[in-house]
């Protein structure tokens, strides 16, 4: 077996050295009736060529986005990933390293995490960011739990235009941790009045920017209303490229930003692995979940980096930790930071402008069908009939037309709504094809 270097001859030498008759004898402490005498009933080992052939066949049963005009978004976006990103993240020293517990031989990981944290702060307009979380949805749930700790309250007001998977992920934790979510109904045209839901029990208000339907709103007044009642404002971003074009949440008074970072550097990959971004104000630092990288010096006074403030974490605090989280999403964060470094200030702004311009072009073509008054690169379209059926029909015609709202809000009266995302990978022909199909 090509991955297993111990030979039969090695085994004999090693067993003799430890005075054991066989490998099986090393399992003497396992109750005999639980020990399998034979291999499990599964196929035997296979060559690299054979495995590649079989899995390639499964891959061929999927329709990749690149093969069609493609308009799906709703929390996962198709952006071009520069070739250098995927090359660099596959360097073995990054790919096969561990969480940097031994900082003297993990400065590579630690320095990029420090740079990553800085980039996340700059993008979101916040003061401090962690080294990433599982995904945007779990980061959002952690944001609510952090707000509960900071405000010492246990009810979150949740926008109806928050991605339902994010809402549901938070709701799972709410159910088992005993806090409450006050969820508003979806409002595709935007203009929710959330401030009036805030009361003396509210720990935070959770809004999405741009929201599920693509709406962009200024949350400054909502932030003031929340702060006036001792609550925090949590701003969720599912399309991080938008912050290349939009005023950052930090400038609107957000206390916590929870975001999905997949759009930079990471493929859609059927929804995972992605990476959660998490940023807040320095005054809340000690209540922040997740890994943090900090600057320090070594014994010779040279600048270096370490994981820090671990006294919040499970491996030190055990049952008194701020969260049970043990890892971040390191390699996805590396892809994110490399892509953003390649883009730089000008590249990111151009990329964001291009996304917006293409989306605006499609919106102009679709005209009266567009529900969303202002948007970045994704908006909502009202069809004449059931959007899911239309998407299925168009898939048959070779167009992946977007995400029907009913897929995320089943059983509501929003069946005729379609979420349409446009990025720099959507070209003029694609726009024309969709406009024609939805005419």
């Amino acid at each position, binding site marked *: 077996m090509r*991955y297993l*270097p111990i030979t039969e001859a090695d085994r004999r030498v090693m067993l003799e*050295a430890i005075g054991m008759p066989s490998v099986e004898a090393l*399992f003497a402490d396992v109750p005999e009736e*639980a020990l*399998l005498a034979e*291999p499990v009933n599964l196929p035997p*080992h296979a060559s690299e060529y054979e495995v*590649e052939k*079989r899995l390639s066949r499964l*891959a061929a049963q*999927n329709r*990749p*986005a690149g093969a069609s005009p493609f308009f*799906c978004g709703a*929390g996962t976006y198709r952006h071009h990933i520069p070739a*250098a990103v995927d090359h660099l993240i596959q360097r*073995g020293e990054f790919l*096969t*390293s*561990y969480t940097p517990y031994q900082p*003297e*031989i*993990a400065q590579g*990981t630690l*320095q990029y995490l*420090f740079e990553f944290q800085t*980039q996340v702060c700059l993008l979101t307009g916040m003061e401090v960011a962690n080294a990433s979380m599982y*995904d945007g949805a779990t980061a959002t749930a952690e944001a609510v739990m952090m707000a509960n700790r900071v405000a010492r309250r246990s009810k979150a007001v949740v926008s109806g235009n928050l*991605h339902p*998977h994010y809402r549901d992920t938070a709701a799972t934790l709410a159910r088992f941790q005993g806090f409450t979510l006050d969820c508003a109904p979806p409002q595709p045209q935007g203009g929710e009045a959330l401030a009036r839901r805030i009361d003396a029990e509210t720990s935070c208000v959770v809004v999405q920017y741009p929201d599920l339907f693509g709406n962009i709103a*200024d949350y400054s007044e909502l932030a003031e209303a929340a702060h006036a009642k001792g609550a925090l404002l949590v701003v969720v971003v599912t399309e991080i490229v938008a*912050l290349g074009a939009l*005023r950052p949440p930090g400038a609107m008074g957000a206390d916590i930003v929870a975001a999905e970072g997949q759009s930079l550097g990471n493929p859609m990959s*059927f*929804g*995972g*692995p992605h*990476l959660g971004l998490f940023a807040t104000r*320095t005054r809340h*630092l000690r209540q922040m979940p997740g890994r943090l990288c900090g600057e320090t010096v070594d014994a010779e006074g040279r600048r*270096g980096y370490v994981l820090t*403030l671990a006294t919040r974490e499970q491996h030190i605090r*055990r049952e008194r930790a701020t969260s*049970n989280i*043990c890892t971040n*999403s*390191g*390699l996805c964060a590396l892809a994110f930071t490399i892509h953003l470094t*390649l*883009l*730089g200030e*000008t*590249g990111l702004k*151009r990329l964001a*402008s*291009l996304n917006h311009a293409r989306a605006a072009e499609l919106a102009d073509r679709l005209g009266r069908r567009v529900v969303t008054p202002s948007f970045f690169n994704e908006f909502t379209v009202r069809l004449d009939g059931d959007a899911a059926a239309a998407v*299925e029909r168009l*898939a048959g015609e070779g167009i992946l037309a977007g995400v029907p709202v009913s*897929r995320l809000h089943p059983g509501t009266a929003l069946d005729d709504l379609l979420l349409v995302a446009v990025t720099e990978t959507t070209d003029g022909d694609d726009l024309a094809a969709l406009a024609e199909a939805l005419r």
Partner: protein
Amino acid sequence: MTDAFHDTISGDRGLHIEEPLIFEQDSPGALGVDWPEVEARVDRLGALAREDAIGLPSLAEPTVVRHYTRLSQKNYGIDTGLFPLGSCTMKHNPRLNERLARLPGFADIHPLQPESSVQGALRLCRELQRWLMALTGMPCVALTPGAGAHGELCGMMAIRAALDAQGEESAARRRVLVPDSAHGTNPATAAALGFQVVSIPEDARGRVDPARFEALLEDGIAAVMLTNPNTCGVFENDIHRIADAVHEAGGYFYCDGANFNAIVGRVRPGDLGIDAMHLNLHKTFSTPHGGGGPGAGPVVFSEALAPYAPVPRIVEEDGLLRLEEANGATLGRMKAFHGQMGMFVRALAYLMSHGSDGLRQVSGDAVLNANYLLRRLEGAFSAPFAHAGPAMHEALFDDRSLRDSGVTTLDIAKAMIDEGLHPMTVYFPLVVHGAMLVEPTETETRASLDRFTAIMQGLAERAKAGVALSEAPHHAPRRRLDETRAARRPVLRWQPAGNAKSDVPGV
């Protein structure tokens, strides 16, 4: 090292090249990606356009590639050498798996495109489920948890949901028994769900003492969380008695599957009476650790807990696979979308490559390698449970043999760095003093193990001979780093010159 003839002008030394932060290499006007400037037009951004500078540096591609290449050279990975980090299973990461995860049919598909257009992806998930259920002997597996700790959370929420469904007496149960040797995530998970953590002490064999354990059950319990093989490196041989006692007491048995590599292909947890267990795909099934994630933590469930498994679930209807989003008893959703697909592709490729025979060899060689190290090193370092039967896939040492030398476990770890080794896990488990937990994995050669033992024996001799190791490492990209300073005066982001240095006001 300070010899004037050998001091370099740059301060760099051969391949040890200092690399500034990207922010210190800002070259306004440089571009690493060519996107066209879009002609100004009326925007639809609702008067919220970003007017200010973001503050990101500008670098061209050659500078960027060199930056990350130089950073990578400051890292130690499995590709570099032996990585004996106990409880982490740092085994070889096959490159085939990387290639397959990048096929457009897996990487370039959207989680919410029509189910009819992703049948291959759903079939892959089903196939991975089939392998995991066969290897664990469990009837149900939830793929969605994003990491081991997330899997623990999922498993313990299922237990909470099951207890809640059984009526008031069960719903009121709060006590969760966790051995002192457990991973920190176990008590953190239980506490996060409002359970009360009750610790189980280890006996002299590094195992749960069944009689003392049974005494703890008398006040009623919700669950026990046990790692098997445990972090002392031995198999809990009273596991049947423990499982029966837990079930008799009306509780559930959660097993931490972090150490599944020791038994894969030889022991099925379903035959041991467990109710839920997470599998770390990034440990046993070799998806890359990636410097700290992304992981994947599927959870297997017994019949009793299966109804509470999270959504979405993959179901088959009329020959078509689809994702079921709602289900009466489910504990709910763990994260957005359907799980770590990229990791599922890699894990399935790993499983198919090894096959049932190769997986059996994995656990056999992993356990053989650990026992080989344990026996060869027990003279050099004290091994608290070496007498308690064969080790499983880890060898545990403590610092008793170092006690009079002034050398600490940390010193040994840092001296290993100078020798070109990644240190083992240190100061864990907490149940022995100055723990050193060594997990070689099955992908090391005998020559690599022999080199390791020679180095470790040499370090033990140096320690006993009074050689101070407290200055180590000398030859790494950095000497020991001041972690106290990092925590007391946190600097968590780069700031332009002139800005406040610490991120925490007033310190």
